[in-house]
């Protein structure tokens, strides 16, 4: 079966690619959106701050002025409603939460209002709103600053949910989210702000709701969300050394969910593992597995597995984080089980090599904080 996920067209790619971090790519995307459309508005606590939301908003106030790039009082619910009001009267607001946990204060406006607005007024008008939410894993962030809540938002008809991984997708998906006429929850993983990758310069949109294959393989499909895509790629490299070729799909969007892309892959591999940054129970991994099982049951030759967070609040302490966050080793181990491979000496050796030397709550060994 031909899989053409990696070749979706990009719109208006202006020039050649160059290497950037995720944060730089997001900053570029915001600048282009603000430049491209004078109705675009960027607002959030810390947006004009010198640190510029981890660098993603740096310099934008200077370029586009205080009326379009502004700070907010700590009033997340009302500010979300203000963005809805602005959106229904012709603006395109982009709201930023430095932690996704703060967006919980705005659940009424997001779920009862933004998500329902177009529907309850008979589709006569729309709410072009982007809410950027950052998942702040690690470095002692703790239970109220490190959650990964995509499944809460994805449950709601009327909200689109996007989780880019690589810098090029971060840029293209953010441009597409801003151009979209409906509310989009744009979830960034804090650790992906420092990830480097080639990013085309100029304005381009990457379609929402489309997965992207990041590695080809014939033995098992590893479908991953957000940061877990990197862990899945690490697992795939280890699995290859054990003779198992894993196909890695970066889901990129949670809602719409690109189930057809996973079904096409599973049709080749017959096996599925889903890795998510959220909790196990009632999560997006469970949803993806359920849909693939319902729609592609006869393609599966083994029960699917999932790797996600335990059903416990996020840790503060370094030590506890080590037990909490699943890694490439967990994915590889589960993948071996799905593939029916006995975990012997060789397998254990490869899995051990995958276990990180650094604490599980810092992005790299050189990291000294703070967030």
């Amino acid at each position, binding site marked *: 079966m031909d899989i053409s996920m990696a070749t979706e067209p990009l719109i208006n790619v202006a020039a050649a690619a160059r290497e950037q971090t995720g944060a730089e790519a997001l900053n570029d995307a915001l600048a282009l959106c603000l430049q491209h459309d004078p109705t675009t508005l960027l607002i959030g606590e810390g947006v004009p701050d010198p640190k510029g939301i981890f660098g993603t908003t740096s310099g934008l106030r200077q370029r586009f002025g205080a009326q379009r790039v502004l700070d907010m009082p700590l009033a997340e619910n009302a500010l979300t409603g203000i963005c809805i009001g602005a959106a229904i009267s012709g603006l395109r607001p982009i709201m930023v939460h430095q932690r996704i946990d703060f967006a919980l204060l705005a659940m009424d406006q997001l779920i009862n209002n933004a998500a329902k607005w177009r529907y309850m007024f008979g589709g*006569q008008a729309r709410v072009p709103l982007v809410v950027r939410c950052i998942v702040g894993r690690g470095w002692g962030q703790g239970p109220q600053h490190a959650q990964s809540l995509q499944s809460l938002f994805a449950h709601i008809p009327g909200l689109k949910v996007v989780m880019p991984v690589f810098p090029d997708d971060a840029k293209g998906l953010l441009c597409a989210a801003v151009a979209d006429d409906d509310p989009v929850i744009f979830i960034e993983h804090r650790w992906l702000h420092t990830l480097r990758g080639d990013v085309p310069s100029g304005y381009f949109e990457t379609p929402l709701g489309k997965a992207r294959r990041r590695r080809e393989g014939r033995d098992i499909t590893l479908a991953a969300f957000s940061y877990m895509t990197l862990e899945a790629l690490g697992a795939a490299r280890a699995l290859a050394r054990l003779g198992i070729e894993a196909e890695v799909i970066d889901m990129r969007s949670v809602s719409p969910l690109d189930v057809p892309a996973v079904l096409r892959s599973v049709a080749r591999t017959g096996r599925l593992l889903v890795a998510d940054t959220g909790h196990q129970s009632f999560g997006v991994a469970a949803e993806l597995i359920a849909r693939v099982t319902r729609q592609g049951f006869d393609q599966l030759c083994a029960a699917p597995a999932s790797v996600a967070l335990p059903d416990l609040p996020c840790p503060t302490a370094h030590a506890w984080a080590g037990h909490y966050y699943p890694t490439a080793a967990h994915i590889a181990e589960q993948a071996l089980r799905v593939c029916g491979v006995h975990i012997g000496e060789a397998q254990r050796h490869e899995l051990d090599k995958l276990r990180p030397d650094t604490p599980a709550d810092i992005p790299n060994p050189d990291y000294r904080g703070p967030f």
Partner: protein
Amino acid sequence: MESDALKKMLRDILLARAFEERAAQEYAQGNIAGFLHLYPGEEAVGVGVLHAAEPADYVVSTYREHVHALVRGVPARVVMAELFGRKTGCSGGMGGSMHLFDRERRFMGGYAIVGETFPVATGIGYAIAMRELPEAVICFFGDGAVNQGTFHESLNMAALWKLPVLFVCENNHYQIGTEIHRHSAVAEVYKRACGYRIPARRVNGMDVLAVHRATAEALRQVRAGNGPQFLECETYRFRGHSMADPGSYRPKVELQAFEKGEDPVKIAIAETVATYPSAEQIAAVGSDNIDNLMGSLHSGGHFPPEHLDAMQAAIAAEVEEAVRFASDSPEPTLADAEAALDCNRHGEVLI
């Protein structure tokens, strides 16, 4: 006030009462499902405020918004059709009683979550301010809504950014069934705005002319770029909170006092229809005030009682036609529902 303007207000107040009473009947017959929050008793607020507004102004309303929509000019037939859940309704039948909408008339919706509307109105105000237009937003809410966090969050931002928003409290003294002294530490709602340095005043919400005057002045301030204004209109709800609520928690004497003494419809008629004072009335007010009384009646428009009867008959026919239109209209289909969302589930296989 111009006689024509007065007559239009009287007409809207009578339409409001007739429309709502008819909606109650249709609800009792099962033609309207779900919630139905009616406006009798509060008409002077909606009519007085909206007659002082310009067509370019925006209106953000509550779940008790039929009359706001009617006064804004949404035809009675499409409001009734929306209550009936029909495709011809102003929200395509997808919203119902609590979610009327009319973009052309800048009626930016009725909302069913108390307090949800403060920020929506404030956001529209932000968009107006950004474009530097001489427009304003009118945000209606009840006395119960002012205890929501969004009230305080939004008033703060509206004042901080000097946004063109007129906050209008329809204080009917009841948060569903809870009397204001049992839900608010400060029962004078307008005083709440002082914490944000928003000019605020309280008016008699049973007197359409008083409401109109206060609104016109407040909107002048808003349009002058002086930031938000706040108006508390003290009014009373003759019915229960909704059709599901008989309102039996209220003392009978209180209801009677308002219905007999302060019915805004009666007050509006008295203010509009020219009935020359009787000898007893003249005696009662005293000769010094006769000139004043005569003056107000003259400025009140010289609207003869027989014209009032004709107006009432025309309104009855309009409401009758609205019900007929609603009953004869088609119901929305599943395809309409999907078209009204067409969002993140579009094209997905859901089994």
